[in-house]
């Protein structure tokens, strides 16, 4: 299990990296944390002739909780392409603004992997079992792609094209991912069932519940991993209704999810079991998110979210 030979490039600037990627086209792969790519290289399941190492690009090494996201919308957490999962997980401002990030990241493999793996890299890898793909999708986030022709921003709904396939074209470098802070009084939760602690989920659910001042449900969404070829987001408000959060029938949302999702079987679980799990976890995650919403302040999109619990 040794990788095939490749030509190694270590550009000193993002501009140089983009230049190289443009020049090399499909012959090049971006090397960031390497936690998904290098196993494939070691097993010779992939053998790109060129690797462009972006680890030393300090300008891409950041985690920012901002009042205004780069696309001009409300507050967001923006993660640069060289930032590690562990950096995002530990960032206090990011956690304050979007506790879902840390909650989901704690399920990404093990700390040693998170020390090296990058959040943007895992999103570009577009593994349908990757937690951060679903988090981006649930929050309606986006990825900024840079190429010799300039920048473009692709929303999560369009970014995940298929299993291990994203909208990033050859010659493009994903320089950041933007996770918008959801408006209103919104709580979140992440739940998953994995065979072992730290494994890819058999089914994972991120939930987002928004309540009004009377603690009535005004928004209920969930995102799923390991149930389709891309992360799936479902709006579940119709199933739940707009009643008081405390008495909402979250399991109805679970039933809707189960009837909507079309998971596949693999060696760890049948499709039927995955669907069943989706139902159970949807109910549990929405319940937890509603509880979380109770403790959150209202985000008026004018500044920092505040903890009121």
């Amino acid at each position, binding site marked *: *299990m*040794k*990788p*095939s*030979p*490749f*030509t*190694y490039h*270590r550009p000193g600037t993002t501009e140089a990296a983009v230049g190289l990627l443009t020049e090399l086209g499909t012959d090049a792969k971006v*090397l960031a944390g*390497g*936690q998904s790519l*290098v*196993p494939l*290289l*070691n*097993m010779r399941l992939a*053998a790109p*002739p060129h*690797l462009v*190492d972006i*680890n030393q690009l300090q300008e891409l090494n950041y985690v920012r909780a901002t009042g205004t996201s780069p696309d001009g919308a409300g507050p967001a957490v923006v993660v640069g392409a060289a930032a590690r999962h*562990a950096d995002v997980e530990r960032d206090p401002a990011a956690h304050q603004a979007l506790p879902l990030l840390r909650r989901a990241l704690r399920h990404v*493999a*093990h*700390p*040693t*992997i998170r*020390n*090296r793996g990058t959040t943007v890299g895992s999103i570009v890898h577009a593994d349908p079992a990757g937690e951060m793909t679903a988090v981006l999708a649930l929050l309606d986030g986006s990825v900024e792609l840079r190429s010799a022709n300039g920048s473009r921003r692709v929303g999560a709904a369009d970014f995940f094209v298929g299993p291990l396939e994203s909208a990033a074209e050859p010659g493009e470098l994903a320089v950041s991912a933007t996770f918008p802070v959801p408006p209103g009084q919104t709580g979140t939760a992440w739940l998953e069932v994995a065979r072992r*602690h*730290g494994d890819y989920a058999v089914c994972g659910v991120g939930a987002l519940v928004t309540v009004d001042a009377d603690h009535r449900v005004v928004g209920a969404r969930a995102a799923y991993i390991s149930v389709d070829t891309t992360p799936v987001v479902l709006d579940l408000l119709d199933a739940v209704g707009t009643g008081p959060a405390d008495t909402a029938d979250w399991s109805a949302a679970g039933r809707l999810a189960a009837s909507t999702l079309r998971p596949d079987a693999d060696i760890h679980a049948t499709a039927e079991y995955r669907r069943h799990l989706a139902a159970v976890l949807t109910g549990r995650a929405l319940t937890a998110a509603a509880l979380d919403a109770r403790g959150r302040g209202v985000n008026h999109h004018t500044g920092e979210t505040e903890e009121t619990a």
Partner: protein
Amino acid sequence: MTDIPADEPLHEVTVVVNGVPRAAAVPARRLLSDFLRHDLGLTGTHVGCEHGVCGACTVLVDGRPIRSCLQFAVMHDGAQVTTVEGCSSGDGGLGPVQQAFRDCHGLQCGFCTPGFVTTITAYLDENPQPSEDEAREAIAGNLCRCTGYQNIVASVLRAAELRGSTGEVAQ
């Protein structure tokens, strides 16, 4: 199948390993684990899977544990690396984590042990007084086939004690 370059270019890689600058000229594809073991002769770092799951190859790069089998040496030119050989005490004896493993029978065949020692060393820098549950979680990314982890969990707690008593707790 890929084209094999007639002359695979070599990269001069210098790494400060356990405080000592070490250099070798290696191809770009040389894994950090192989670089440490076979180019620098530091065979304490072990290779158990080469796909990043078992943790035997874990070393500290700039203080953080990472899988050396998922890194190319050339990426770490100029880095500070700590291997199990560098987890000894100042006088060359067993460091607190190593001593704890001995006290608690935390190893049997010893093959996975270096990855545990490095992982726990870094963990205790961050969390000097873990609970038993935290200790179990701290080692959850490393596979051991001999011990059933019982005595490794005990070793984490014992190492915390030893570090506390020798004032080695990091600030």
